[in-house]
């Protein structure tokens, strides 16, 4: 019980810190999509610090960040975990070796190149068949489910009873250019017809995320978790603001926001 309490608090602090680090990377001139990154930050932090994906270990579960434009959070995590030194990150960035797309060639903790949407579920199936003892996690965006390959993959998982894939849909209700609060295909009844285990919860509540991990710990079936999130979560100006879906704030605005968060750490 006490351990759980500690873990929750640790993750909540980590989330705040990662938000701060991520924005600092942007202030330094790195370009990332703010809205979609902040909406899945909490889930990524829980996945990568909560024990589900232990990047430090060799024989670990695999992770595909299908919404690859949220990679800034991944870099912030790698730097915080000291798996990538800030010096090396800066060097790679200066030498144009890292940017807006995950690249397995330059950073070994990345399991798959992403950037084109809709590919990850099929790739995860291949990984799942090749690695039946590992769990394969993928975070996809809610706009991404319009890609037909997502459904080709979901039908295959259902029909072939693939047991070790966990799909997390970041339901932030905003695509790059539009509000997409009405997505009937995300209806639980429709998804239930695929005979996959469906979870639906608030993606910004650490307790709920940990409960989800707990319930898939020992189960041997693939799952879909629809996490309700807010695009740009945690920073009022960015929240549900289509301008910051992929647009960058000016430096003065960003400095003010970071200063405000910085006070928390001082």
């Amino acid at each position: 019980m006490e351990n759980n309490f500690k873990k929750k608090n640790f993750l909540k602090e980590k989330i705040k810190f990662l938000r701060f680090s991520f924005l600092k990377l942007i202030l330094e001139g790195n370009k990332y999509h703010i809205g979609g990154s902040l909406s899945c930050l909490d889930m990524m932090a829980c996945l990568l610090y909560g024990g589900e994906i232990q990047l430090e270990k060799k024989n670990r579960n695999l992770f595909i960040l299908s919404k690859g434009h949220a990679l800034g959070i991944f870099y912030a995590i790698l730097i915080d975990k000291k798996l990538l030194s800030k010096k090396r990150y800066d060097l790679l960035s200066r030498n144009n070796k890292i940017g807006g797309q995950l690249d397995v060639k330059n950073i070994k903790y990345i399991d798959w190149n992403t950037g084109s949407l809709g590919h990850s579920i099929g790739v995860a199936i291949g990984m799942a068949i090749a690695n039946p003892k590992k769990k394969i996690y993928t975070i996809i965006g809610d706009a991404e489910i319009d890609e037909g390959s997502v459904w080709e993959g979901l039908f295959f998982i259902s029909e072939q009873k693939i047991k070790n894939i966990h799909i997390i849909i970041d339901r932030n209700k905003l695509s790059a250019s539009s509000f997409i609060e009405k997505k009937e295909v995300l209806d639980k009844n429709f998804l239930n017809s695929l005979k996959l285990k469906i979870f639906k919860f608030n993606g910004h509540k650490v307790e709920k995320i940990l409960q989800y991990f707990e319930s898939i710990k020992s189960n041997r079936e693939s799952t879909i978790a629809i996490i309700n999130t807010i695009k740009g979560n945690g920073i009022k100006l960015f929240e549900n603001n289509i301008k910051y879906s992929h647009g960058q704030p000016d430096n003065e605005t960003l400095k003010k926001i970071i200063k405000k968060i910085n006070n928390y750490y001082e």
Partner: protein
Amino acid sequence: MNKDIRDIFFDNIRNKFLKDSKIFILTNDADVYSLQRIKNHKRFIDTGVAEQNLINIAAGLSHSTNKSLIYGFCTFLTFRCYEQLKFNVGSHNLNCKIVGVGPGYSFSNDGPTHHAIQDLYLIYLIPEFEIYNIADNNLANQLSENIFNISGPIYIRLDKGILNYNSNEKYNLKKGFALKKKYQKNKNLIITSGYFNKIANDLSDEMKNFDVLNLFRLKNFNKSMFLNTCQKYKNIIIYDENTFFGGITPIIQSIFYEYKYSPKFKVICSPEKQLFKYAKSRNEILKLLKLDKLSLKKQIYNFFI
């Protein structure tokens, strides 16, 4: 080897598959006789007609040390899943072998959806992919025996029928082309690939006034040897079942351009159009397009004289 070229190729693949637990075979509901008896094997995956998923799964499977071989129609394994090939297979440089059956007009009655006359160059545009274009039993045998020794992604266009016309040729898979000399002093050359190599060979047996070069490896073939070979000829024809921009012509032209080599030169190839014509045989379609053996004979007569 009086067998269908597909049986030769896939018999070898099946034997390798049964011996090597790292090999996975995948298809989009395509049927190949030689592989029927392993269809229920756990490493045989039929995704149904979902080519994007097919390529994604193969890519994920090859993420570790596995090797995957995918087979299906040329047109569907290229056009329908191009981004998956480019990004998931190509950018990771995976050990995926894509075997396209039905190149050219080999499925002559099925219309432009099945006419594979641009797929070759489409795959050529993906930097990491190697391409082999095979319409010769002997070559199919050699390539399928060695397919997993060649690393990285490969697209293989595999023809159909008994194509047993070059059984004594010792192909060099690395060099990537083979020259058939008919007469020592010939100054005329036809460069071709795939099924048209057979037609050109048949015609050169009759006419004997030109040699035939079979370019079967399309990306990393030995370009300087290829150029040296071409430079021994005065008159060159490219004879290709694909379209001008969809086949071997831009590949050869770019080499000639790079080395400032400009022989007397002619291209005989498919027109740049989607052909809504249907025929019971490939030859009928080729006749319609003036690409059959007789038409070739007429066209080269004046050029070579």
